[in-house]
């Protein structure tokens, strides 16, 4: 486990992914901390960090002390599994579904881990970095409607 304060004054904690629930539980239950509000949960994909490609980022808020903290765990691409936080926070349900939907991170123990914003037939995880956005200058695509490259037919 490591903790540091980022340059914008927010405490950032990193822990091994097996411990994510333990850390969240500690932060939740500790009477002086009481990080009992899950502000945000999302994922980040770092293809260059071998073995730690996928990050799950929690933003927690202690309303009692009015403190925020960022908590990160990393998971490898081959086994993108972390424990679900739905037992602690009902809010985590859809946030984890969204993270699964876009990054393919499997939240073990989640009651209903299926896609939420994308169609269920989708077989890839679109926010991963191996799916770059289309090059805006490409000209090989014949798209008459939006005038991108191709051959625009003359209207007689």
């Amino acid at each position, binding site marked *: 486990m490591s903790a540091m304060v980022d340059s914008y004054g927010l405490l950032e904690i990193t822990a091994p992914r097996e411990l994510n629930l333990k850390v969240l539980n500690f932060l939740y239950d500790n009477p002086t901390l009481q990080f009992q*509000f899950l502000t945000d949960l999302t994922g980040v994909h770092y293809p260059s960090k071998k073995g730690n490609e996928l990050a799950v980022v929690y933003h927690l808020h202690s309303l009692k002390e*009015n403190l925020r903290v960022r908590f990160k765990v990393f998971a490898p691409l081959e086994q993108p599994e972390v424990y679900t936080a739905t037992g602690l926070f009902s*809010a985590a349900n859809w946030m984890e579904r969204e993270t699964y939907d876009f990054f393919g991170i499997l939240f073990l123990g989640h009651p209903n881990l299926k896609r939420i914003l994308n169609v269920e037939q989708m077989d890839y995880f679109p926010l991963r970095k191996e799916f770059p956005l289309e090059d805006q200058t490409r000209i090989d695509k014949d798209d008459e409607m939006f005038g991108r490259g191709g051959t625009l037919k003359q209207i007689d």
Partner: protein
Amino acid sequence: MTRLYMSEQHIKLPEGSIEKVTSTLNLGPTHPATHGVMQNILELTGERIVSADQTIGYIHRAFEKIAERRPLAQITTLTDRLNYCSSPLNNMGWHMTCEKLLGVQTPKRVDYLRVIMMELARIADHLICNSIMGVDAGAYTGFLYVMQFRELIYEIYEEVCGARLTTNMGRIGGFERNFTDQAFQKLEKFLAEYPRALKEFENMFQRNRIFMDRTMGVGGISAERALNYGFTGPNLRAAGVDYDVRVHSPYASYQDFNFTIPVGTTGDCYDRWLVREQEMWQSLSILEQAYQKIQSFKGTEAEIYHADIPAYYLPEKKEVYTKMEALIFHFKIIMGETDIPVGEVYHSVEAGNGELGFYLVSDGGRSPYRLHFRRPCFIYYQSFEELVKGSMLSDAIMTMSSLNLIAGEMDA
């Protein structure tokens, strides 16, 4: 007898039964009462709701992915389309996130101008939500009447940025131009005319027997459950938690203003309506204070409408034509070739629906490495089943409109 259902997955048979005893109702995706594209698959016995299954994502536009290619200034247009009832709030939130990343200090006058626009947007947002609640309860008149006053707000937007709905207002560091005299005149007109209309609107609904019967005790939630569900904004405050980002992590000099956070007790539709109503009064008070503060700036101070950050704030056109540096910055900003600092920021603002957060990860390129929007709507909509379970179908409609669900914000 064989029956035809919408699809296999919508048939929910009770345990051990071969015959379906509940009826399935598809509420949405294009239902007038959803006020947006979202679907609810309700299981009903008679008119009572047994279970609700929300399906969202019908207008998902992959903003987070698109943002990974765009320079900071071009992402403002994406934020417009989150909660489109109060675009300026989202715009300002995004600008402030960028400023936090870049370490920019904005002048006080810019902060106050921002507060004016943000509070106007909050009024416009709450106005829509509260009057639409009336529409869903069967009172169309209130909605039509207060629309005139949203029009006054939109006219101020027009004067400030040229647009009405998807405003793309302001820039990193401030506003694109100083507020004109007409803008302030229109603000004065709004401040003079709106309180009376709001009072009339309140008189129409607040102690209205039909409206009270439709909303009291409907869709209630306890403070503990609301917090656990990640509620923010008026919906959380209606449950009795006085959490407001403007007070807890002040931005845009909100600490200079006097205002109270209205809270409810039961967290039901009526309390949500009351909280929004009181927040509009508070916003009016903040507007008055901000306008007074703006008027105290005299001479050259009254000309300040942006921070001095040439690398991110577009120079004036006449300087672009005459000065080399201005030309370079103009080109770099327009083409989006300015590299942003490495870092991670989370910044949030109190938007119409609650805490709108921006989690921005930068690896030092021209565009964000990753951008995540914390959309309040998306997070609290998951509580819908808990809110309506066991209640009547008509209560589900009220609950939906009182939560102020905006599909654009939900789906990003």
